[in-house]
């Protein structure tokens, strides 16, 4: 009797573990639990100065950029089995371009804008898009390995950003520019949460209302078959890189708005690691194919939770990547072909009887 019960429990657990949202949720809950034990005040949310305040809000707020990047990165990984490692640098370039065009070239601090704010912001996002076009062309048309292609902008984008800002930090001391990364007066919720929701919504609608999602998965799983059934795979790959670039542009603007300046050397630093880690934590395979956008987004907030936890433990910004790098290695190692076949063999033994009845 009790053994039967155990069997049921084990069976249930096995099914839960197999669910595609298991890994992201499991990690998130794990991190939150650790925090809860360490500091019981973790979940408290207050209102201070008319805005929401608390660790959770902080994670949601600070995690915005990673979540936005993760959206683009998920598509790129799904379609080409390679990652875009230039996103962090592209963020920085977008921010610099935006601030430069708002302040004018060579101005290091300004109270008045040279052009309307919305134009500057759109320009910054567009700059991200252009970087995406560059990466996409190299990968889809010239068939260069994604990581090598994006390595070029990984270095160059930040350098170009420095040039645009004349090697200095450009400050935009214009109140509305701070809204995006902070708070709109009268609204207690950080604006970046809305921006993230907006980006996710746009991409989700794009995936749901058009067949892009289906195309991306088809190309990622079997390029040859996709071509034979009429999908132009290089176009789809190109598009994914452009979307990824645009996402990096938006993330760059948000990051810049937070500090109302363009700091070419520091905006988006190590964010490429966070974005890739978010996708991996979201339960997506690094080998491309089927993807799970929701998982990546939860993964992104998990990363932020980890970062916040580390900071709370007194780890500095520069030191945090050590932990994340180890997590990345663990996840990709578990996804490695060696382990996969091992797992497959194990589950095959149990399944072989079931399959025979289903087959034929």
């Amino acid at each position, binding site marked *: 009797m009790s053994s039967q019960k155990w069997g049921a429990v084990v069976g249930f657990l096995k099914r839960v573990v197999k669910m595609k949202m298991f890994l992201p949720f499991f990690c998130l809950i794990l991190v939150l639990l650790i925090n809860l034990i360490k500091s019981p005040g973790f979940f408290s949310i207050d209102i201070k100065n008319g805005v929401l305040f608390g660790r959770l809000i902080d994670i949601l707020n600070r995690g915005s950029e990673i979540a936005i990047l993760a959206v683009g990165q998920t598509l790129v990984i799904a379609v080409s089995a390679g990652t875009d490692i230039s996103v962090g640098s592209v963020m920085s370039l977008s921010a610099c371009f935006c601030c430069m065009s708002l302040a004018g070239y060579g101005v290091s601090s300004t109270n008045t804008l040279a052009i309307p704010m919305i134009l500057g912001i759109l320009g910054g996002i567009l700059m991200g898009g252009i970087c995406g076009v560059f990466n996409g062309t190299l990968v889809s048309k010239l068939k260069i390995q994604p990581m090598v292609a994006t390595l070029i902008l990984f270095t160059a984008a930040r350098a170009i950003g420095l040039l645009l800002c004349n090697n200095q930090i450009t400050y935009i001391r214009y109140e509305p520019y701070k809204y995006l990364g902070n708070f709109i007066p009268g609204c207690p919720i950080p604006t970046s949460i809305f921006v993230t929701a907006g980006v996710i919504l746009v991409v989700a609608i794009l995936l749901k209302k058009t067949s892009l999602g289906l195309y991306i998965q*088809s190309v990622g799983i079997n390029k040859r078959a996709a071509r034979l059934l009429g999908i132009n795979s290089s176009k789809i790959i190109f598009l994914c890189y452009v979307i990824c670039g645009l996402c990096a542009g938006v993330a760059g603007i948000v990051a810049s708005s937070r500090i109302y300046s363009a700091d070419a050397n520091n905006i988006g630093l190590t964010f490429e690691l966070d974005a890739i880690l978010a996708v991996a934590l979201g339960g997506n395979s690094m080998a491309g194919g089927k993807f799970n956008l929701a998982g990546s987004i939860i993964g992104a907030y998990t990363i932020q939770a980890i970062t916040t936890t580390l900071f709370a433990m007194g780890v500095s910004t520069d030191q945090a990547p050590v932990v994340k790098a180890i997590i990345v290695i663990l996840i990709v190692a578990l996804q490695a072909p060696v382990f996969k076949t091992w797992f497959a063999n194990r589950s095959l033994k149990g399944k072989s009887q079931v399959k025979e009845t289903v087959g034929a």
Partner: protein
Amino acid sequence: MEDQILLTMRGVSKTFPGVKALDNVSITLRKGEIHALMGENGAGKSTLIKVLTGVHAFEEGEIRLDGFDEPIINHTPIEAQKRGIVTVYQEVNLCPNLSVAENLFIGREPKTKLGYIDWRKMNKLSRELLKRLDIDVDVTQTLENYSLAIQQMVAIARAVDMDCKALILDEPTSSLDENEVSKLFVLMRHLREKGVGIIFVTHFLEQVYAVCDRITVLRNGEFAGEYTVAEMPRFKLVATMLGKDVDDLDSIKPEGCESNCDEIAVEAVGLGHKGTIKPFDFHIRKGEVVGVTGLLGSGRTEMVRCLYGADHAQSGTLKMKGKVLKAKAPIDSIKSGMGYLPDDRKADGLISELSVRENIVLALQARQGVFKTLPLAKQYELADSFIEMLHIKTATRETPVSQLSGGNQQKVILARWLCTHPDFLILDEPTRGIDIGTKTEFQKLILKFASEGMSVVFISSEIEEMLRTCTRMCVMRDGEKVGEIDGEMTQEIVMSAIAGGEEK
């Protein structure tokens, strides 16, 4: 001495999950003979070779090699090589970026007293080796500068120098031109004289009669017989490969319905793709079922790929319903009303991790374009209707297609094309590896589509199937369309057409 046995495989069986790939297969290789290993796709040739060279393990049977008292089992290709069994594949397994000499000696480079590689000695040894085999190349050149034929010969030379007793050539001639093939044959005869036993896997009948001494035929993973070339006329060989007794060939009556319509659906003039298929003419009427027959590798797949635009035709014109069609990519062909069920289901057809529904609607979706998504309700309706119509056995329409059995996967791909209501549908081996019942279903379906006005090109290794469904057949041999059979069709006529040559 002539008939000394070098290698025997006896009663070898090998099972893959769900499939018996080899069932009690035997082959005997003697010293100084060229032994053809023949069989249609799926007959088990490559499995047999992989078992022999240790790529796969086998369950039953034994392998004996001259010089070993006990039966041997190779666990890796390298172990097989050490025992003197070397395989040279169609895609040459050498390193194109290294020099010819290095390719000959890599892994066993001659060294100087100080322990580093002695290039001068290596080049000298290489030159001597190649001279002995009458291969005329500059050994210091990078391998990729030479043609595929030379590369293959270098691979063979490497094998010979490593004291190879049994040399396996796995379809070495598929991508060589006539001149290169004859050079290769010279080398093969040369080795035969030296006492090397050669297993020659090919599907070119001409070549078998040109160089081989003996033939072993496999069929559906079973041993179908061993013959000397002299006692095996072409026609009988084809019959054995296809599993027919010469006596009971006339039992099947064609059931294919004549098309009354004279409207030409598709017409190709001088269409060709360099390197795979020589220029050919082709036409098909509305509501007609045309078979393309020929042995595997005869160019039948290449021909339909060229028609479909999967391989971009370099010569000739293609007209679809009277209009010239210039397909840059398959999507153009799909838009003009074509459909193509590819021969390699796994590599070219299935998007394995996606669901049955998604696999079914994909082609229609691709034709509609990315922005005109089919409403989900419509997708469900399509999926359900085809699951019912084609009797696709699946748990739900959302089951990943990889979990279905082979026949049902094939039906899913068929459903994918039926969704698009094509005017011209190409079916390349739709019935391979599926059970008899489903095969009959497929044949009925093809006839049904034709009666509704669809033009169908049908390829199958089983001639009866084609006889039952086709009104006309194109015959392919050695990458060329060699003729058409019209009017009276019997297995005998078809097979002698496939076999070619003077004698019947």
